[in-house]
């Protein structure tokens, strides 16, 4: 290992002042400010979260905080019919529905949008900028706006009735509530996936398409035999981050269906953890739920990369 430049400079300073070369603290001073926050809010809570998940932990009652071992996890998995934990499993089911509604369009439509934008024509960047614009907004703005669009007597409801269709309680019944939340999510975030696909498409050399065209391949064949295989790593990446983002649904359902979320069946896992841990102060079981969700997400992510990332070589 070569002595780094700063270290050499430091020792030069030290000899100049007549001191013996000693341990160089400078690198640690550089990383220390970030490391303090990293330790306090990422490293420590990793272990502390596991620790409190082993207790019946109510922040407001420090005098009563019994160690319960794995009971919070056991309740989660085997005590599904109790009121407290059936709500959690309902939230898991709800979030599952949202994954089914939101992930396929967020990946497939984003890819199609990217293909449309991947040409050399005037005003292309204007459209790209427009499609991406909602992503710059807060989830609150997106959700409040789409709640207003789907409200009874709102814009969508009005046009729906003008078509002669029967008025629907969009945000109060299924499957409409999920459709509304999904549309809001697509509007808000699809631009991000599109931009990532677009960047990957632009890396595919034109010569491949030209060669295929000479061999008589049509647009669709070019898409399925050149674009899709070459995009496979990016497809895996985008579908994974979309899966994670959708599993972390919070703001859209929290704002669009509000206090009715549980009744309508749109209460997400994060909403449940928020309610359990912060509103009801049952932080032990909320920590267990968080760790459970995190573990499932890690497993899904790994599987996604293993299965879809490698099938090319099989």
């Amino acid at each position: 290992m070569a002595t780094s430049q700063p270290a050499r400079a430091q020792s030069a300073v030290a000899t100049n002042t007549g001191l013996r070369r000693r341990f160089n603290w400078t690198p640690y001073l550089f990383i220390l400010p970030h490391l303090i926050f990293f330790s306090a809010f990422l490293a420590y809570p990793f272990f502390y979260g596991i620790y409190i998940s082993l207790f019946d932990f109510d922040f407001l009652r420090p005098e009563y905080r019994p160690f319960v071992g794995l009971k919070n996890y056991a309740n989660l998995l085997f005590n599904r019919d109790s009121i407290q934990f059936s709500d959690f499993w309902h939230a898991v089911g709800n979030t599952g529905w949202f994954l089914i509604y939101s992930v396929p369009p967020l990946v497939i439509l984003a890819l199609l949008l990217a293909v449309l934008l991947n040409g050399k024509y005037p005003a292309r960047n204007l459209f790209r900028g427009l499609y991406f614009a909602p992503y710059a907004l807060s989830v609150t703005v997106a959700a409040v706006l789409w709640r207003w669009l789907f409200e009874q007597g709102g814009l969508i409801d009005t046009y729906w009735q003008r078509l002669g269709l029967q008025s629907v309680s969009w945000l109060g019944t299924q499957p409409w509530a999920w459709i509304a939340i999904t549309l809001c999510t697509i509007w808000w975030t699809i631009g991000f996936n599109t931009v990532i696909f677009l960047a990957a498409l632009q890396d595919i050399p034109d010569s491949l398409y030209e060669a295929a065209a000479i061999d008589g391949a049509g647009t669709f064949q070019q898409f399925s035999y050149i674009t899709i295989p070459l995009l496979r790593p990016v497809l895996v990446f985008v579908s994974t981050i979309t899966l994670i983002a959708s599993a972390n649904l919070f703001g859209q359902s929290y704002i669009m269906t509000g206090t009715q979320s549980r009744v309508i069946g749109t209460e997400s896992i994060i909403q449940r953890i928020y309610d359990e841990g912060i509103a009801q102060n049952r932080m032990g079981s909320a920590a267990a739920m968080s760790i459970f969700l995190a573990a499932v997400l890690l497993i899904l992510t790994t599987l996604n990369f293993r299965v879809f990332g490698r099938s090319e070589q099989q």
Partner: protein
Amino acid sequence: MTTTSIERVSSGPAGIKLVARIALYLVLGLIGLFFLMPLLWMFSTAFKPFVETLQPTWIPQEPTLENFTNIFNDTSIPVLRWFLNSLGVAVAFTMLVVLLDSLAAYAYARMVFPGRDLLFGLLLATLVMPGIMFVVPNYITIARIGWLNTYQGVIAPGLSGVFGVFFLRQFFQSIPRELEEAAYIDGATVWTTFFRVSLPLARGAIATLAIITFLTSWNDFLWPLLILNDRNLQTLPVGLATIQGQYTFDYGKLMAGAVVTAAPVLILYIFLQRFIIQNVAMTGLKG
């Protein structure tokens, strides 16, 4: 501009190309409407008097600023205060992230010290961990040190993030060492070299990090919602979410609040659009 483009196309080999291009613009335009119309509806509603808000007209018949003056004057919904809170939190957070992350990134990129690879590996490992794991324990930490309902309670946990460290480390590694060596030969210390040579060279990467960080902080919802209960301390996204229950059928005011929340980022976005999109694509692919 459009006419010239069509002329250019029609001068191409066949008329088919022109038809194809018109079809393409039609499709792009229709999709564009899906993204544009909700925003237009937000602005339209915000400038309508109350009686007009339930009519599906796109252009307000009697445009008014009363929704804005109402939310700015109503002491129960201190929108101006929220705006300043959001601005203060986002600016302070961005400056701290840039300072902390550039210092750390420089050390991880350029210095050799015992424990470096282990520490950097630890930072790497947290990248794959879902954020929800840290919410409950961090909430308890913030409550313990008495930072609930404070700005530092909103800002501090986010400073632990490792994205900026990775992002800037890659950039620092790409700077030619000769530039720094020249500074050392001239007798500069590590600190002088960092602040006078390396940091100025990284200003493009730092601007990117600053913009992404500012947008993330301005739009953040879950964490400030947990930490800030005091109405006067809330940020715009949190405040907007809490008033929406109160004004269920007064969407004029709600949309005025949404416009106030959206306007700064939309303006930033319009000016920096190309820069933001390119960097999102770049960092997204790497992250």
